[in-house]
């Protein structure tokens, strides 16, 4: 068990967000959490990332609270937040390279890995641009690259495709799927239900501050847009 929400209550003043929330996130799964705005998705996500503490109950990550883990442990988690977190006065290259530099990687390796990601996300021409000069979609991609450049074992992404067009969204989702196939655990919280499905994907839905896992018959979206999703679908159909 990777994450466990044990009888979690969360409220902001008089407003109750969660009451007795119990939820487990298994290792090696690809989970998508959907729900309307204001349904509590982001609060749940923030509790996963230990940004918000539960009013009562416990959120356990590998046996203890996330904040109790050593910094080295956090290196295995890739966080993608809805709002940009990058360093405004640094360029795109330095922002993406930051995790590798923290790990003490040599500059040659850093250059190779960063340019790999810049090419993958079609951002090479923006390598020297300041983070503060980027568009919303470009910022989203930089955030994404920075979170995934270490090949983390756990990826937590809140609205990772919010500022992207459908093609760019598919590209990022393909990359997440690639990581999942390599053994990473992926948890995405998103406002719009993705236009694809795969039997391996666990779907959660948040409605009126209640979380429930969707049954396969409730998921009626046969459309696959990302290339990997398409091939996964093909694999299944053959």
């Amino acid at each position, binding site marked *: 068990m990777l994450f466990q929400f044990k009888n979690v209550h969360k409220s902001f003043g008089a407003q109750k967000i969660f009451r007795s929330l119990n939820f487990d996130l298994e290792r090696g799964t690809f989970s998508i959490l959907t729900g309307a705005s204001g349904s509590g998705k982001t609060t749940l996500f923030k509790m996963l990332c230990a940004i918000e503490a539960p009013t009562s109950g416990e959120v356990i990550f590998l046996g203890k609270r996330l904040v109790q883990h050593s*910094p080295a442990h956090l290196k295995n988690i890739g966080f993608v937040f809805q709002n940009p977190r990058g360093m405004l006065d640094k360029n795109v290259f330095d922002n993406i390279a930051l995790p590798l530099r*923290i790990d003490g990687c040599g500059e040659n390796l850093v250059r190779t890995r960063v340019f790999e990601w810049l090419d993958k996300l079609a951002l090479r021409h923006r390598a020297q641009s300041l983070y503060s000069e980027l568009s919303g979609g470009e910022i989203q991609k930089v955030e994404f690259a920075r979170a995934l450049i270490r090949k983390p074992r756990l990826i937590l992404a809140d609205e990772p495709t919010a500022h992207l067009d459908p093609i760019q969204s598919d590209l990022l989702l393909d990359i997440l799927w690639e990581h999942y196939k390599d053994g990473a655990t992926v948890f995405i919280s998103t406002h719009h239900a993705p236009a694809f499905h795969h039997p391996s994907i666990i779907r959660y839905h948040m409605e009126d501050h209640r979380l429930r896992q969707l049954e396969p018959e409730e998921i009626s979206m046969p459309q696959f847009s990302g290339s990997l999703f398409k091939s996964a679908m093909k694999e299944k159909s053959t």
Partner: protein
Amino acid sequence: MSWLHWIVKEAGLQIAVVLIGGFFVFSWWVLGHLDHDVAKEFSEDRISVIVKPENEFEFRRFLDSRPEVTRYEFQSGEANKLTLASLYPELSSVLKPLESDYFPISALIQVKDSAGFLGALQSEVQFFQSYLVHTPPKEIQHFVSGSAIVFLILWMLILGLYLFFQVEHLAHRDEREWSLLKMLGSSAQKIFWPACYQQAIRMFVTSVLAVLLAYWGALQFETVFQWGWNPMAVSIWSQFFILSMLLTLALFSSFFLWRYRRVKLG
């Protein structure tokens, strides 16, 4: 008037650290003097005795026999005449022609236990004419050591306040970066050391200014009170520097770790 606003806002506490630090070093220096010169001299009671000239030899024997006496010094009539003449130069023309017999022989005796010695002295009244007990200036010593402690506490408080606000200022300015680095699993040391170097340099400059202020104060003090002052010893300001740096490191690291723990991930 923006520079005035800047001084009040940014440099106010730093100036306070310099001033209080300067006062602390200065009072430390004065205290050191009291401990090493004045108080040491008076650490044992001293008794001045006017000795009857005909009993000088017997009085010496009496002093040699007393276990309380650690040191004694006789001054002849001639020596006392010259001392008097040097203390009152305006009278020297009158004093110098006089015979030394007009002046008494005196003894300055240093004793470990003044009560015991005075008891014995009272039983030998034939040897002396009068005596005077010099007691150490304990009140001055208490006052100066009290001042040094008060300035030390004040200086530590101001230094603590200054470093606390510095950490808060850094956290407010760099919270985004701290949060990002924390999220990426960076150790706190990566942020701590660059910030700590900055504060250490500031405190070094502040300590230099405080020592200069204390040194200037000591020079002024020497001119006002013409006593046998020694210049400020290297040991005083070097100890102050070491104390200042260690305290800065200890306080800054405590405040930083406390603040860094409160920074949320991402």
